[in-house]
């Protein structure tokens, strides 16, 4: 994520002067070859992206033609009868991601504020480094911990407690399985906190000190300063960070697959096992026997791809608007 922050400006002078040397370059054939090679490699990145979208579209075409819109409204997932509807997976992905986001956002934004606005610089630096370590842990290790440590703990203590005391609520009904929607939500929350925290931190650090001073000089306490000058200024950037977290949560595969219980059902209860779009791909794709089954999984992949593309583009635009200083602060001259 850090790599996003300082592109642009610095390059301008480099590009200008390189273009000044360009006239000289043309006579040197070595350079034209070199330029050709670099262009090919650069273009191949665009090509890869287009190829991915095309392949996903092409491979899922049989399923799109066969089921049409019914694919996203039907709950039947029957590989033998070749009747496929992805609703339980879409439901599982949406609910698990949104709940995780709901829990992760206050924690992440709170941490980002603590690190940038409240704690001493050195302590803030240590906390940021620790949070970044959290981001470096591979998904499969979160899953390992989730399935061997957290899920049994949920099954032993947390879920029976919820059933005993809140069992009348539709969210806490059924038997305590451990592996459940609840386990997936907690794991996802732990995994997206570092992303939202580090991007929010970057956004907050980009807020000009003059904004903070303006609030403080009016007699604001520290919290009033944060609410008055820091949060409004960073609003869109923080929103972008949250959406980026959402994108990560929706696409997250291994950890969720290991703790969600992999049962295609739609249940209000957080204690029931569920299924998500990436999980069903992970579990079934290597073992498909019919063309329609693999096409249906491809279509789920295509939906996933479309959603993550949309989410990412939106989030990047929002984060950009703050860290590149177009949100405010201009117009002084």
């Amino acid at each position, binding site marked *: 994520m850090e790599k996003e922050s300082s592109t642009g400006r610095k390059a301008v002078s480099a590009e200008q002067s390189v273009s000044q040397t360009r006239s000289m370059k043309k006579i040197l054939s070595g350079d034209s070859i070199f330029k050709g090679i670099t262009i090919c490699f650069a273009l191949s990145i665009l090509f890869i992206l287009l190829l991915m979208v095309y392949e996903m579209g092409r491979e899922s075409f049989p399923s799109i033609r066969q089921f049409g819109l019914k694919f996203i409204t039907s709950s039947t997932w029957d590989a033998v009868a070749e009747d496929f509807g992805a609703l339980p997976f879409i439901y599982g992905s949406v609910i698990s991601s949104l709940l995780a986001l709901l829990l992760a956002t206050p924690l992440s934004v709170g941490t980002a504020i603590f690190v940038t606005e409240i704690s001493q610089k050195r302590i803030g630096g240590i906390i940021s480094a620790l949070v970044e370590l959290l981001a470096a842990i591979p998904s499969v290790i979160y899953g390992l911990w989730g399935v061997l440590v957290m899920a049994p703990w949920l099954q032993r203590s947390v879920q029976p407690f919820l059933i005993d005391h809140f069992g009348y609520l539709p969210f806490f009904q059924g038997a305590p399985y451990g592996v459940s929607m609840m386990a997936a939500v907690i794991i996802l929350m732990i995994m997206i906190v570092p992303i939202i925290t580090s991007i929010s931190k970057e956004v907050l650090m980009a807020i000009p000190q003059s904004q903070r001073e303006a609030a403080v000089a009016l007699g604001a*306490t520290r919290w009033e300063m944060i609410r008055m000058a820091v949060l409004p200024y960073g609003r869109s950037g923080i929103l972008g960070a949250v959406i980026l977290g959402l994108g990560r949560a929706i696409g997250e595969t291994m950890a969720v697959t290991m703790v969600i219980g992999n049962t295609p059902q739609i249940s209000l209860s957080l204690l029931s096992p569920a299924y998500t779009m990436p999980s069903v791909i992970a579990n079934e794709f290597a073992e498909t026997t019919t063309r329609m089954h693999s096409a249906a999984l491809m279509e789920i992949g295509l939906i996933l791809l479309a959603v993550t593309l949309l989410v990412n583009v939106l989030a990047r635009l929002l984060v950009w608007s703050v860290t590149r200083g177009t949100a405010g602060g201009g*117009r002084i001259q």
Partner: protein
Amino acid sequence: MGIKLKLEGVNVFFGNNRAVKDVNIDFHANMVTAIIGPSGCGKSTVLRSINRMHDMVPSARVTGKILLDQTDIYEKNADPVSIRRRIGMVFQKPNPFPAMSIYDNVIAGYKLNGRANRQESDEIVEGSLKRVALWDEVKDRLKKSAMELSGGQQQRLCIARTIAVRPEVILMDEPCSALDPIATAKIEELINELKEQYTVAIVTHNMQQAARVSDYTAFLYLGELIEFDRTGKIFTNPEKKHTEDYITGRFG
């Protein structure tokens, strides 16, 4: 006229670096006091110490006394928040809150002390904006973003925001350095009017400005107060050779 604010042996340290050395200045009530000196002489540092802005910089430390109506604002149980409400500050670059409307910007500081009712807020906004001669220019677009104003208008808005809190002292840190000459003239005129109600301290690197707007002038050099006197005296007949050299443009 009494002395509103008094600096006694003020030192400001950043880490081990002593940026301001034993400065004594008296700010007379309802007068404008200018602090001048070459850049890097510590004039902004002195100003910022007066409403405890250095509290925001962990390495900064202020020693000595700064008396507001005979009470030391650095006293142990002094509350920086209430001190800053009595001593407002206007910064070098206009810094309105970009996410707020013109109206909300003016009332932002006032609202901190509990709910103001609608009518009261309206009156304060109108009064403050009239005070800075901005009312006629913005009265039809109070709900628009403050970022739509020009630089000079933004700075007057920031002054309106400061006086809406009803401070006793207004500190101005080179308030015109980011503005064009016409906007500068308007602010200077405003400063002249403000002193009827407030005690004003202004930091400027522009000596003509100091001569035009101030009643008293302090000349700082390398963190030390070289000379402090009536502005007329400083600019016509300074005591110190150093001051004379500076105001006649022989250095700095």
